[in-house]
């Protein structure tokens, strides 16, 4: 088994999907959390990072950057990417959609003008997000009625991706109130033994 190090800050943020994949697969890794207030980042680490950013992965001394590229690499190594090339593409498709949703969240999360931030947040939660979730609910339903998985008949990183998005969207059931299949899926994934164990054990951070 290769030696894995995941380098990020002490938060869920853009590394949590990778952490969920490691834990769901039961693969050990060094979960490096740098404290940038103490100069640990950039420190000696920035020079190692392919694009000068975190998160990045070190596998037996070789670097890989970009959250989704890293997560996909790990998912494929640990057989969590999907059983066929088509299933893998369908999983990728869901991950891209979650990424679109995250991008929207980061837009208002980083907005400094409080009034504008509140306006953007309200529009997101009332209009944008329900539209995205509606599409996801339909796609889930198309997969054997929607009481199983997003892709195929087993857990993939797409399922971990939506379970992770749950936390990004406030960690409550509220956004999924009118979308029972998706709410059920998220609950099932978060209750998966290794996932639940990690969710309970991980450092509690605001984001």
């Amino acid at each position: 088994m290769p030696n894995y190090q995941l380098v990020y800050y002490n938060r869920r943020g853009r590394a949590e999907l990778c952490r969920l994949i490691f834990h769901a697969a039961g693969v050990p890794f060094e979960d490096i959390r740098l404290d940038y207030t103490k100069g640990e980042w950039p420190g000696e680490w920035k020079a190692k990072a392919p694009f000068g950013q975190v998160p990045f992965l070190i596998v037996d001394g070789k670097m890989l950057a970009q959250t989704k590229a890293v997560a996909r690499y790990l998912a494929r190594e640990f057989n969590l990417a999907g059983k066929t090339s088509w299933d893998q593409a369908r999983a990728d498709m869901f991950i891209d959609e979650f990424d679109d949703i995250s991008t929207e969240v980061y837009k208002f999360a980083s907005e400094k003008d409080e009034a504008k931030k509140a306006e953007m947040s309200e529009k997101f939660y009332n209009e944008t997000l329900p539209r995205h979730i509606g599409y996801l609910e339909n796609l889930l339903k198309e997969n054997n009625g929607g009481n199983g998985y997003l892709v195929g008949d087993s857990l993939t990183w797409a399922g971990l991706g939506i379970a992770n998005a749950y936390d990004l969207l406030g960690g409550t059931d509220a956004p999924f109130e009118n979308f029972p299949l998706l709410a059920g899926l998220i609950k099932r994934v978060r209750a998966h033994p290794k996932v639940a164990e990690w969710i309970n054990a991980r450092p509690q951070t605001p984001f």
Partner: protein
Amino acid sequence: MPTYKITYFNFRGRAELARLIFAAAGVPYEDLRIEMSRWPVEYKDQCPFGQLPLLEVDGKVLAQSKTIARYLAREFNLAGKDSREQALADMILDHYADIMNEMKVIWLESDAEKKATLVEKFKTETLSKHLGYLETILRQNGGGFIVGDSLTWADLMVVDSNDWLGVMFPNPYDNFPLLAGLVKRVREMPQVAEWIAKRPDTPR
């Protein structure tokens, strides 16, 4: 061979990487370009997330431009020879997506003067840094192809980016000799050159 169809607007836009992959691989496909007026009425409902581009493979659909391009690259052996090369290509794709997202914010700025300032700042500070990383990756890989030792979709990403970066920043690789060389070499490859010569000429 399956039947392939790409549905998009009459732009290069978010479909062009997939079209370049089909061209480089020499695989035929239906290149459907629809009028804005026919969207959403005729097409939106077929789309998993209500957006284009859409790929149909023997009638099964796939959405999200990056996913579509990756699926095709993998099917046509243009994704990279092993899991690490494939991950490196994915990494470069994500890097270009970050650049594009940052440019979108500038593109949407309505104040013309503010926009001009943002464009200039982006060009001299941000873009040179982003492209500098890619020049380094190409240099460290020996300067021939950006991933591995043969053509992958990562090289086609560089070619495509020359066009979409060019919409806001003409000749984006002027200060990056290895990337500029890669763009030129790949554009001259027969199947790619043939596509570039015959594709509809659109502003973006």
